[in-house]
């Protein structure tokens, strides 16, 4: 697990939640974004838009990556790690 990416994702989750006045519990890998953090579908979309600005990628533009497959914070981390690694390998 890439800690730097993980930290960035958690920071963005907190920022989006604060802006929408959501009270968040402790965030762990297993935390469920919709069921535990209380994100609506629009808030998930806002989170992804914020992550695109922060990390420079939108993994969900890839037709094989489905938002429905993301349940936990760990799922989100893995998807962004893969997308960032793919981008780096393209650049190299």
């Amino acid at each position, binding site marked *: 697990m890439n800690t730097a990416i993980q930290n960035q994702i958690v920071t963005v989750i907190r920022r989006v939640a604060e*802006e929408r006045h959501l009270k968040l519990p402790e965030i762990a890998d297993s935390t469920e974004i919709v069921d535990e953090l209380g994100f609506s579908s*629009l808030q998930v979309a*806002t989170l992804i838009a914020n992550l695109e600005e922060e990390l420079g990628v939108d993994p969900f533009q890839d037709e094989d990556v489905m938002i429905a497959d993301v349940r936990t914070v760990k799922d989100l981390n893995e998807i962004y790690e893969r997308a960032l690694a793919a981008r780096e390998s393209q650049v190299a």
Partner: protein
Amino acid sequence: MSSKNKVVIVSGGSKGLGLGICKTLLETGYCVATFSRKRTPELDELLQSSDGKLYWQAVDVTDEAQLSDFLRQVKEKFGRVGYLVNSAGMANEGLLTLMKGNEVSRMVQVNLEGAIALAQACAKQMMVASFGVIINVSSIVGVRGFKGLAAYSATKAALDGFTRSLAKELGSAGIRVNSLAPGFMDTDMTSELTDKQKKRIIRQTPAGRLGTVADASSAIKFLLSDESSFITGQTLVVDGGLTV
């Protein structure tokens, strides 16, 4: 440029209504980014007098890679996009049964798919700021229908549907979405109308004239502004009363 810029993207700004919208919004203080496939002398003139507040790039709206590159350049130059005017459009006139399939496809790609792709990309930036305004330029022919413009009117009616649904999706994210439906304006796009058709349209228009680019641009300026902050999901018809 600072993040306090009011940054607007206007698609199809090299001539006609798109160019007029760029002029009006520059005068209003926006940083304007526009694109078209080719530049024109009128656009060059505006670029020269814009004091760096107007950016143009050669882009075919149906080319995903070109569009992404344009959005990246705009963000670097002006900052995050807060406003979008989907104005790029093309109209092939003729009876549908005599129209070539690729002409119809191209119209759908430019008028509808291009507008949706731009709205999708810009809405993401707007969501980050929890603010944004999108205007889709449709047409009264999408509202009422017009002989010889069946496929064109289909793309414009579709844009109005897109406006209503997107307004519902994005309203709580602080983003407004409206359509502007101009009537027949004196631009290149209506140059294929015969004098007889133009006279008939003028006769049927309560305001007694064809529309102008300025008529539509001032309505765009209003819909982008905070003066219209409680208006979303609507189609504003600017046609001198023709469709009343």
